[in-house]
């Protein structure tokens, strides 16, 4: 298995673990009562912001650790640049990722039209963000293994 395939698998697993553990951590902090809109919006705002920051920092740390383990176990250096195949796969991953997020965004807006609570809109938005991330990683893994 090549560096890019291993990295895609590591990123996929870390994305799932970070998202699930963060949701489990934040779930008990949900404001009780649910009628105070300001408190609810503040909760969802902080949920998204902290999740974004935590994800970025965790991915950087995981990438550094992964590169160190890769160097030690294979005695190879990781590729220092992205070539035409990497860029093509990156583009395909972004396309699929954006498609999933746009579908989620439209579903979230649709939930408001049919008078669903605003919490549902936030849940759909956050979940579609997570799914789009997973889709991007899976697309990369698929194309690195099966070709373009």
């Amino acid at each position, binding site marked *: 298995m090549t560096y*890019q395939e291993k990295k895609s698998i590591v990123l996929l697993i870390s994305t799932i673990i970070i998202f699930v553990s963060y949701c489990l951590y934040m779930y008990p902090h949900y404001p009780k009562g649910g009628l105070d809109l300001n408190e609810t919006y503040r909760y969802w705002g902080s949920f998204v912001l902290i999740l974004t920051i935590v994800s970025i920092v965790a991915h950087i740390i995981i990438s550094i650790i992964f590169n160190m383990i890769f160097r030690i176990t294979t005695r190879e250096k990781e*590729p220092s640049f992205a070539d*035409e*195949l*990497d860029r093509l796969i990156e583009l395909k991953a972004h396309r699929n990722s954006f498609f999933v997020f746009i579908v989620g965004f439209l579903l979230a807006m649709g939930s408001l039209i049919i008078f669903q609570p605003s919490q549902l809109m936030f849940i759909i938005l956050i979940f579609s963000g997570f799914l789009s991330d997973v889709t991007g990683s899976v697309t990369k893994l698929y194309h690195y293994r*099966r*070709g*373009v």
Partner: protein
Amino acid sequence: MGKNLVGNHIRKLRFNHDEMTQQQLADKVGVTRQTIVALEKGNYSPSLELAFRIALAFNLPLEKVFFYGENTK
């Protein structure tokens, strides 16, 4: 994902050139080893520019390295 129609003799040519490694060829043409692996497996059709660079690395014309469709040789 089906196999690409553009085939190549890269693997054979590497061995005929002092058993050149995938990494050596990748360094010569400016791509990662992963791309050479994908090319040899027939999982990727290179850009015209990369195809020319690979042909130049072997000092051969393009058609001696790459072929379109089934290889008859």
